[in-house]
């Protein structure tokens, strides 16, 4: 084993130490902001450096077998053996770099974004804790260890969404996120139980090795397992039907949305499917379900994104939609493709979120200076921001081109890779053509709503108030710096995995080979003629351009009114704005009935009424009633007592004789 791989525990421990230190500071001496920045960012940079070293060590190694580093025995009972162990292999390496890298950049950005917040140390403590759990998630060598990270990131997401906890909406959003995740985690748990029962182990290496013998292809068990895993993944990665928490999660600070709800945590579901690729490959039905869920989510979320006014909500639905692409990718067997889109998405979506954060930051500062209470996130209050924020404006356009799929940028290659495989699978079963079509339509919508976002925010006349405009300014360098780095990533990350028709194709695919090859024999090889591939790329380009052009032609930022004066929406626009009323439907069908039933039926009627009232206190009342009747005999007259006593004695005498 290369020495540097042995250092991997440092990547886990460093953020945790940061959490401890910052947590302590937040309780003891919350005003020590410089120390917090130093520790918070420092541990992340160090962790990133170690991660790079670890991956470098791994890349020199030609074996391809994963390294499992066991530290201690966690749960060992009977046949169950779960070790606290980390696993370093090609897949976790990619994730490790993305997680620590993007995290480090976002930590730097946060130093500027959060500098005036009274909860500064608490913020960095939570952020460090999040990185700790995220790293644990990607490095865990078994399902339970991964689950630790899995739940842990959910916890941090909960804490950070509700960061400004004094507002009930934020606290609600945090709770909603945690609960939705828990619903998914239920599936994860069930999957673990099934896997353990079938293979007798929960460690990745052992499970995947045993899988071909333990399961029959398309068998009942494997299908159940993969459905349960999908449920877990859908919860974490905000797929239908568990996606509604993610847009609400935008209640947290914007860098948090960038880090947790765009770049890293929400991709855990994709990672889970990619990690368990052999299981999904052995259950083709489940794979189709994964792909369908992904495609439907991609399309559905994109429609909602069309009509949102909150800049972060647009990005949130865009994230849901892009995650749908990743699910589509891993669902059609393009595991490397899914991971590739995960990587590029981490760059351009983090960039979009941070850029929007930068805009919000500027607007918020302006409103703060004039004591206005307007919504700093509503695009109707923006417009013309390019004048004030040239850097942000530039990098945001880069990211928009990337996500829309303009050729040459990273998003084009990753999205095209997924769609190409989906199209090629159509050869096996026509349903994949449908999925492909949905992906293409979603791509069209993506290009449209992203251009809409850019137009409304940066172009046209400024709809910010006169007084505020004087206070609008570009963000400080700690914030723009990370933006530029991410922009470079958004542009060039595409070279990681170029299409087969270009030179040096499929580097990432090749790198991930040791992990994905387990499932190769269960999938038909993807055959796509070069001409078809070119054609698909041309279609994708046309779609992207059409979407963007459509937006430019159809939307008139000049006619938009500020949020206060805007007319109410009607018809389909309102339905879209209200997100197809899914939240309301869930509330009416699930949340309210459950609470109502718990309160009125289970508690007040059944618990207090039937069990406690009728049965417990009922028996007590019966005893009292008997006593009451019996006490009539107790007249208090001695003569009566004596008479009864004597008669009793007579009867006893009779009895003994």
């Amino acid at each position, binding site marked *: 084993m290369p020495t540097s791989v042995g250092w991997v525990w440092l990547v886990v421990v460093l953020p945790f130490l940061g959490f401890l230190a910052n*947590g302590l500071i*937040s*309780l003891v001496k919350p005003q020590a902001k410089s120390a917090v920045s130093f520790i918070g960012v420092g541990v992340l940079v160090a962790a990133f450096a170690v991660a790079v070293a670890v991956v470098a060590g791994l890349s020199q190694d030609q074996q391809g077998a994963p390294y499992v580093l066991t530290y*201690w*025995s*966690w*749960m*060992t*009972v*009977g*046949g*169950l053996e779960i070790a*606290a162990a980390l696993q370093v292999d090609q897949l976790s390496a990619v994730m490790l770099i993305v997680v620590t890298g993007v995290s480090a950049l976002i930590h730097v950005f946060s130093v500027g974004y959060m500098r005036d917040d009274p909860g500064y140390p608490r913020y960095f403590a939570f952020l460090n804790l999040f990185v700790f759990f995220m790293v644990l998630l990607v490095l865990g060598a078994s399902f*339970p260890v991964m*689950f*630790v990270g*899995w*739940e*842990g990131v959910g*916890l941090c997401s*909960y804490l950070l969404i*509700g960061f400004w*906890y*004094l*507002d*009930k909406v934020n*606290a*609600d959003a*945090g*709770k909603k996120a*945690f*609960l939705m995740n*828990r*619903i998914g*985690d*239920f599936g994860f*748990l*069930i999957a*673990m*139980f*099934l896997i*353990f*029962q079938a293979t007798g182990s929960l460690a990745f290496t052992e499970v995947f090795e045993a899988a071909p013998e333990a399961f029959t292809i398309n068998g009942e068990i494997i299908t159940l397992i993969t459905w349960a895993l999908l449920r877990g993944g859908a919860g974490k990665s905000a797929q239908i039907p568990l996606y509604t928490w993610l847009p609400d999660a935008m209640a947290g600070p914007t860098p948090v949305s960038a880090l947790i709800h765009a770049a890293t945590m929400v991709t855990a579901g994709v990672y889970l499917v990619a990690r368990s690729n052999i299981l999904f490959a052995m259950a083709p039905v489940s794979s189709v379900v994964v792909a369908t869920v992904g495609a439907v989510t991609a399309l559905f979320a994109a429609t909602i994104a069309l009509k949102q006014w909150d800049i972060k909500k647009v990005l949130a639905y865009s994230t849901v939609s892009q995650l749908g692409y990743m699910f589509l990718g891993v669902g059609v067997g393009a595991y490397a493709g899914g991971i590739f889109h995960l990587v590029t998405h981490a760059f351009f979506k983090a960039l979009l979120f941070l850029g929007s954060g930068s805009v919000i930051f500027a607007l918020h500062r302006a409103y703060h200076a004039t004591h206005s209470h307007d919504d700093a996130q509503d695009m109707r209050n923006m417009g013309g921001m390019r004048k004030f924020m040239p850097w942000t404006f530039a990098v945001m356009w880069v990211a928009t081109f990337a996500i829309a799929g303009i050729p040459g940028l990273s998003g084009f290659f990753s999205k095209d890779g997924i769609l190409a495989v989906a199209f090629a699978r159509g050869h096996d079963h026509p349903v994949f053509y449908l999925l492909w079509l949905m992906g293409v339509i979603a791509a069209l919508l993506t290009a449209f709503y992203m251009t809409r976002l850019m137009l409304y925010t940066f172009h046209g006349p400024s709809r910010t108030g006169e007084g505020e405009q004087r206070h609008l300014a570009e963000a400080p360098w700690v914030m723009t710096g990370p933006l530029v780095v991410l922009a470079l990533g958004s542009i060039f990350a595409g070279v990681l995995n170029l299409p087969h028709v270009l030179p040096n194709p499929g580097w990432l695919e090749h790198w991930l080979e040791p992990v994905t090859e387990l499932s190769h024999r269960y999938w038909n090889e993807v055959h796509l003629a070069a001409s078809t591939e070119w054609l698909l790329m041309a279609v994708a380009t046309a779609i992207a351009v059409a979407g963007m052009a459509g937006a430019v032609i159809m939307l008139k930022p000049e006619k938009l009114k500020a949020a206060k004066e805007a007319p109410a929406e009607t018809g389909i626009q309102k339905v879209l704005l209200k997100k197809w009323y899914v939240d309301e439907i869930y509330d009416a069908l699930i949340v309210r009935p*459950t*609470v109502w*039933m*718990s*309160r009125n039926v*289970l*508690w007040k009627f059944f*618990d207090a009424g039937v*069990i*406690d009232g009728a*049965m*417990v206190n009922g028996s*007590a009342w019966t005893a009292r009633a008997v006593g009451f009747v019996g006490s009539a005999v107790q007249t208090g007259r001695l003569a009566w007592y004596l008479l009864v006593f004597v008669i009793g004695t007579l009867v006893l005498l009779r009895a003994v004789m």
Partner: protein
Amino acid sequence: MTEFLGNIGYNNWVLDALLVIPLVGALAVLSVPAGEAKKVALGVTLVEFLVSVPLWWTFQIGTAAMQFQHAYPWIPGWGIYYRVGIDGISLLMVLLTTLTMPLAVLGSWNYIKDKLCPYYALLLVLTTGMLGVFVALDLFMFYVLWEVMLIPMYFLIGVWGGPRRLYAAIKFFIYTFVGSLLMLVAILAIYYMVGDATGVYSFAYDHLLENIGAVGSWGFWLFGAFALAFAIKVPMFPFHTWLPDAHVEAPTAASVILAGILLKMGTYGFLRFALPFFPSEAMHPTVVTIVVGLAVIGIVYGALVAMVQPDFKKLVAYSSVSHLGFVMLGIWALTQASVAGAIIIMVSHGISTGALFFLAGMLSERRHTREIAAFGGLAKVVPGLAVVLTVVALSSIGLPGTNGFVGEFLVLIGSWGPYPWATAVAATGVIFAAAYLLWALQRIIYNKLDKPENEHLPDLSKREILVLAPLLACILWIGLYPKPLLDRIEASTEHLITTVQEQRASVAPTPGSEEQVP
């Protein structure tokens, strides 16, 4: 260290000392002025704890035999002996008890303001009772101590409790008493039946266990009596209504002890007596259906009802119903993992729920109410308390890395084999647990700080930190490295499972005949 312990004959007197020290302490507490009572009580419980700690190391891992065992005649004419000994399961329960007691004393420090001497004396008597239940190896002694522990608890609730304390105390007492009287009848029945069959009339655990075959067809009734007594104590689903009342009215320390230790006696009783004595009855398909069904109903039902409680203590009380459902499921699944998990939950529920009750007590000390709606936004005012409350709540939710997860995970993964459907339903408990605790958490420490009374509450005092710190340490320790605990109970659980399986095979009628019964 071991040498020193050997020189002073630690293993020979430790259990006796654990039972005697609190009693002596109780007398001492009664004889000092009221102002000194808590200090003396704290000293006694600390000594008790320190005496018990070396058990952890002198306990021999890897054997299921009862250790530190010895007996003195009590009423030898009737075969009644003072007979004590512990195995891995008792060991954890004993240590949990001795750890909880000093904290309970510290937690009552300012909360109890009148009749101090009797209060602390009762706490100490309670300690002896509880430890006695866990170490007794004589069924008569077990029964006596089981009742002994009831009396101090009755007074603790009835004298120092809340407004409805008498109702709660009497309900608690009578409810528990009904069950334990049935158990007494069952114990006597076993005593006579085994005595008649073997000619040796003795209440000794081993003797009765070896010859339990003598009860023949009475097994079902006797098992039923034991099971009812323990099920009430646990409490299992339909027998749980004494618990919320008792918890709500009891003073903080009593709530902690009630949740932390007393409830465990029910499950301990199942592990120690009901299952090994009556394996074929306990594992009869009908019984299994009932017990597992009730356990699962308890999990979901407890969680749903907890969700809508306006009173924080009541919420925690119902959450206990839910958690103890996991324990019952684990015990009945009878696999290594599930039984070990059940025991871990017993310990970790004691720690987490104990801490939750401490926190509830601290909140109500500050605000003189337990209504969740009376709080809000406390994280801003009392950040330390908020952090601790969050961590403890998360451990109760079963977040991986905390003690709650280890137990629940082991129970669920162990129970999946025998009862997949029940386990699947039980696993939904993790969702509901998150729902009720997070909702409560939000309404207490998050949301708007809109009540002026809440704006100037003091944060945790040093004493309160001292109470909570050991519990937090245990939460993380058991969550991250439960191996030492698992090691100590492994042999015992394995022994239990094999005993039950073997007995079941030997006692049960010839295979096949059971299936013929419609």
